């Protein structure tokens, strides 16, 4: 009897319990370690393809909101963005600063994880795809941040202008430091360039970036830096992989959202946009609306009447969300502008006309001509604004064009008796970083 008891006691106290305690407490808690896990993380569209920064779109001149609607808005940041007040992004955890950085964390987590996996011949392709996608997401997130939180790219001062925070790792402990604008754009370019070499030409879903998307993102980056030769080259590469254009004559303007989701022009799908941008509150600027010719199919496909104006229904998401991804029409326009800037007005107009012929009622489009590159540029910029309305590109364009005396504008809002203006060189073209980021990281605030 006593022997049994002793044995039992010994078993209890001395047997190794290591194995017993290695059981995972919750089967749903997984430590990412496989290519499948990393692929699933990058497919987490909720964190990577949704909630793109829209502050610039709200602050740009495409949007118009009535006084009554403005005053009734419950969204303080939206109100303040619209009137260029500096108190923005302090009332919501998910904002234009935090959401792109969330995508950066996902990208960095995948990039670090992939370093621990040595791909074999079979998995090399998938490994490349994932690394390419992670770099693409990070590069695009940095680009979007740069458009809102850094001063417009200005080559002479770029090396000293404060840029955004570049996160090298997924580690929480890594301190945030603002890089220079030059370093910011260098990183965006190097991320996207490597992505372009790694990404496959085609992907299963439009929310996954492909080669053409990476080249188009590079073109967008180069354009915002006024590097027109570079932009043209990236456009060539992007259009080499996909130069499809959607013939708007095939679309039905009576549909609630006439532009189809995942259509042939879409290189990469992402969405964003908050309440103020959505009709009936958000209306298109009435002058801009009137600039669409009556035989321009976009007039009816993009816009529908709402009380007090016209609302935008032309999202490539075919929903109330704004399309903030990348499509070929933008690449055509970027290349057209680059050609014009480089003095090649014929090549410029060829790209412009190739696009517009798909936008006007069949048989009615009269191709644009121009005597000089400057004239071609005028026309391309007008068309660029009209084609890419509510695509979250106008703000970046305004910042770039304001540096050119020919195209600089003063924006104006009227709320009741109050008139707000935004001068071309206003510091408000760069949004303040959220207060809590400044407090916790100690990085310098924008002026």
């Amino acid at each position, binding site marked *: *009897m*006593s022997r049994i*008891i002793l044995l*039992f*006691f010994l078993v*209890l*106290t001395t047997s190794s319990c290591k194995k*017993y*305690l290695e*059981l995972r*407490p919750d*089967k*749903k*808690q*997984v*430590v*990412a370690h496989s290519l499948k*896990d990393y692929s*699933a*993380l990058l*497919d*987490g*569209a*909720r*964190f990577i393809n949704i909630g793109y920064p829209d502050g610039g779109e709200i602050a740009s001149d495409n949007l118009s909101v009535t*006084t*009554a*609607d403005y*005053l*009734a808005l*419950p969204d*303080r940041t939206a109100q303040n963005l619209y009137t260029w007040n500096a*108190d923005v992004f302090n*009332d919501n*955890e*998910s904002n234009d600063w*935090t959401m792109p*950085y*969330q995508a950066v*964390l*996902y990208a960095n*987590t995948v990039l670090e994880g992939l370093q621990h996996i040595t791909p074999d011949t079979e998995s090399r392709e998938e490994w490349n795809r994932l690394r390419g996608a992670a770099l693409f997401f990070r590069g695009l997130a940095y680009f979007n941040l740069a458009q809102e939180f850094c001063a417009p790219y200005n080559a002479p001062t770029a090396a000293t202008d404060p840029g955004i925070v570049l*996160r090298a790792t997924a580690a*929480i402990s890594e301190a*945030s430091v603002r890089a220079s604008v030059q370093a910011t754009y260098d990183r965006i370019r190097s991320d996207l360039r490597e992505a372009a070499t790694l990404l496959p030409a085609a992907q299963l*879903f*439009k*929310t996954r970036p492909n080669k053409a998307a990476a080249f188009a993102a590079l073109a967008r980056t180069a354009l915002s830096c006024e590097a027109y030769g570079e932009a043209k080259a990236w456009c060539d590469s992007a259009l080499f992989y996909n130069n499809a254009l959607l013939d708007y004559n095939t679309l039905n303007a009576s549909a*609630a*959202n006439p532009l189809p989701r995942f259509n042939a022009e879409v290189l990469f799908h992402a969405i964003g946009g908050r309440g103020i941008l*959505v009709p009936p509150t958000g209306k298109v600027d009435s002058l801009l609306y009137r600039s669409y010719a009556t035989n321009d199919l976009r007039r009816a496909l993009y816009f529908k009447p*709402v009380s007090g104006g016209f609302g935008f*229904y032309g999202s490539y998401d075919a*929903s*109330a969300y704004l399309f903030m991804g990348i499509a070929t029409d933008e690449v055509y326009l970027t290349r057209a502008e680059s050609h014009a800037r480089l003095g090649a007005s014929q090549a410029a107009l060829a790209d412009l006309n190739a696009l517009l012929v798909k936008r006007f009622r069949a048989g009615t489009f009269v191709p644009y001509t121009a005597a000089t590159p400057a004239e071609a540029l005028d026309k391309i910029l007008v068309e660029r604004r009209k084609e890419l309305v509510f695509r979250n590109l106008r703000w970046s364009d305004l910042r770039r064009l304001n540096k050119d005396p020919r195209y600089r504008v003063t924006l104006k809002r009227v709320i009741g008796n109050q008139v707000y203006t935004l001068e071309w060189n206003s510091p408000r073209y760069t949004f303040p970083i959220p*207060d*809590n980021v400044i*407090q*916790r*990281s100690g990085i310098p605030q924008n002026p």
Partner: protein
Amino acid sequence: MKFLFFFLLLILTAFTGMSQTVTGSLRTREGVPASGATVTNNRTRVSITATLTGTFAIGALPGDTLFITHSGYEHLVLVVPEGSEALRLTLAPDPHMLAAVTVSTGYQRLPRERATGSFSQVSEGLLNRTVSTDILSRLEGTATGLFFDKRLAGARLSIRGRTTIFAGSDPLVVVDNFPYEGDISNINPADVESITLLKDAAAASIWGTRAANGVIVITTRKGRIGAKPTLFVIANTTLVEKPDLFALPQMSASSFIEVERFLFSKGFYSNQESSPNRVPLSPVVELLIRHRSGALTTAALEEELAKLRGLDVRRDLDRYLYQKALRQQYAATLTGGSAAHAYALTLGYDRNADNLAATFRRYTARLSNTWQWSRRGTLEGTVAYSQTGARTGKPSFSSIIPASGKDLYPYARLADSAGNPLSIIKDYRQTFVTAAKAAGLLDWSYVPLQDYTHNDNRTATRDLLLNLGLTYKLTNALSFEARYQYEGGNSDNYNNQGQGGYNTRNLINRYTQSAGGTLSYPVPVGGILDIENSTLSAYAARGQLSYNKAGEKGALAAIAGGEVRQSGVTGSYNRVYGYNGEILTFSNVNYDSSYRLYYNNGVRSTIPSSTGFRESVNRYVSAYGNAAYTWKNRYTASVSLRRDASNLFGVASNQKGVPLGSAGVAWTLDKESFYRWRAVPRLKLRVTYGYNGNVDNTLSAYTTISYFNSGNAFITGPYAAIGRPANPDLRWERVGTFNAGVDFAFVKGILSGSIEYYRKRATDLLGDAPVDPTVGWPTGRLRRNIGAMVSEGVDLELSSQVVNRTFSWSVSFLGSWNSSRLTRYDSISSAASTYLTTGISTVPLVGKPLNNIFSYAWAGLDPLTGDPRGLVNGQITKDYLAISRTPVPELLYHGSATPTVFGWLRNTFSWKGVELSLNVSYRFGYYFRRNSLQYNTLFNGWRGHPDYEERWQKPGDETTTTVPSMIYPLNTRRESFYENASVLVERGDNIRLHDIRLGYAIEKARHRWLPVRSLQLYTVAQNLGILWRANTHGLDPDFYGTNLPSPLSLSIGFKAGF
């Protein structure tokens, strides 16, 4: 084996000396064997302990004095008579004892007098003073340091304040010998014999990493060897009043309409009118729109509005939804024993219907057996089974809402004058609802008084517990104990939302596709059935050696043991659409495609899926030991040590195990020979120090990801999200507790009690470290071991027998003082708004308690505009942005949001079997933030406040009111300034009459006519209301928001003994 036994006996005989042996049996006045009583021969100084059957044998000569002590009973002094007859002795209960007998830690039973730690014993009588379905709520008002926070629904109890910021703050609940893994509401109060609270480190550290919040040890009823069979039948009924809905702050319908007209005139609703989401507009706004369009004349409008002005939705809620709750409780307990066997059987049945007609039934059965198969071996076995069934009832006032984030408008009508149910505005505009019906969709209206009848939502639980214990005495002093417990339970929820229910119709309609007038239904027409089940399977095994030796000079009590425990939960949930409960059919739906929603074609969504699985297992391996040595019955020293390891995810420091321990000393002063203070015959000092732990097992040392199967309309196939970032430094929280106490009793029960001081230092506390959101966490918070705090307090317990004759009057006073402050918190959050809260959640700030109230300085209303004004740098200002950036040190600090001084005063009067007792609670030294009018919630959330009538309207009003003027457009910063201004902070102090109990007890021994052996009749009234409060607004600070103050309840019941 036999030889060994004989040998030991021989040694024992030698030990007791050559004197004659006196035998006897000890029983208490109740007839129960006084097992464990100590019999000491004054001459030889030899002490022995009475056996389980209460017998003893001690060496003594005639004329020797025997001194018999038994915890909870009066000492007995006896001179050994001539002759060899066995003695039959009866012990009388000690009326002056602080609390009963022994205390249980779940590992051992300790004689209280030899304990160094802080225990509170709650006797069966005290537990049955009040009536409730569950056992834990009966602890309210019974022990010091125990606090019930009822501000939110579902009381949370804590022992000696909170010493964790975000990890669980609930005390560990132990039933008999093992932590209870199931739902504590499965325990029938009739099963419970007593409860011990383990409050300091010496008492609780034996529970290691889970003991930092204190331990509640529930001891269930056991039979006693040799006791006569006793049957008790218990029955009681409780009637609970409706909650006072009129205590809800609501604006008058007339004023609400006035505000709506004001907003309408400003064009506030214009974008809502054309909203693509068809957002609902209130009936008044719809009338105003019709008036504007000319469809309604001004006279007709005014007539309609006049009809609405006199309405108050609270009247309808009170009349049509709420009812008196009824709770019935029946139980029978049978206990008894024979020479070597004891048993206890309890059967219970509970039947409740709450204020909203939700029903609950519980059946419990518990059988415990003890066999003493030899003088050395005892086997115990318990089987307990409980089964519950619950069904939801009517919707509560807070769940009847016109849309997410909108309160019910004050002129809503739930029924017409004839009592026929009416629909209210819900989710969409009335015009849209009407048009949709015309287009062939299902009726989209919401009728609160009918809706719940279409839903069948019930939950059934079953729980089985098996407990086996074997105790074997290896020698007289050394015994071995092996225990095993298995607990298995399952819970099934069946929620059939019939097609008639609004939720079901809404979902079907939202997904309805219309192609040229032809409708198709991606969410099929029919009911929606959700079923969910979870299964608990837990086991625990323990082996323990106990050593108990009372020698001539000292007594040593020690245990050492090891334990393994596993608690696993598996579960699954599933939803089917198009469910037909009559023939058990359902339809398959396409979860992968996204559909344009009918109410807004611009929005696409996939059909919500609700299918999933859960599986989790927690494992623990522990080794523990403790020892207490008492020298000369005066000096006791104790030490305890425990090491826990668990399978907590990837925590290196944890897998190595955490040693936690305690040490303590006690000095029973009254036993000293120099002690001469006759007025105070009992005086004991004790001091302990030790460590307990606390853990949050949802955290992980690695970056974890979670998989999702659906919800991403852009892709098919699973996707993943980052769950928690890696935290390789994760550690268990540790709480070091110092406790010093004095137990005392004056003669004749004039005054007895204890006073204790404690100081808890918690380190490695998990906190939400505010991180720079740039790292990729938009919430900007990550949980890490970043805090430390100190919590100190005094527990004072006094009882006094003021009058003790035929009429007796006793007073019991419980007083607790607790003060805590954070001493370290590695965060650099400086945003004032972080600290301006309701004080319900913990808001860590160094130097302050965890639940605290801060505010902005208030500088009155602007005499010209009625704008609220604050202070920035000492200057009166209306720059609300600047105010919102007030540095934290410049905010006004009021104090703790939980009481710092609280306790109870219980008076008991008895006369000839009639007993009346009243329990009064007091809570002092805390603050709360009063609700007032918020224009943003009024405009957008339709939540008014009576303060609207008090608002500033014209210059001069600022002298009589602090409610800001109504302005348009809204200034949300102005709103949040007023909401958090000092003018809305009130003192929470209050005194309330918690309960009154009237009982009458009679016994057959005195009243021959009584058909039963004993009978107790009682009636209890609970929640009798506030006697005094510091705030002048008539508010009850101990309830918050939609959690209305507990209504009066009245119970009657009896307990009959056979």
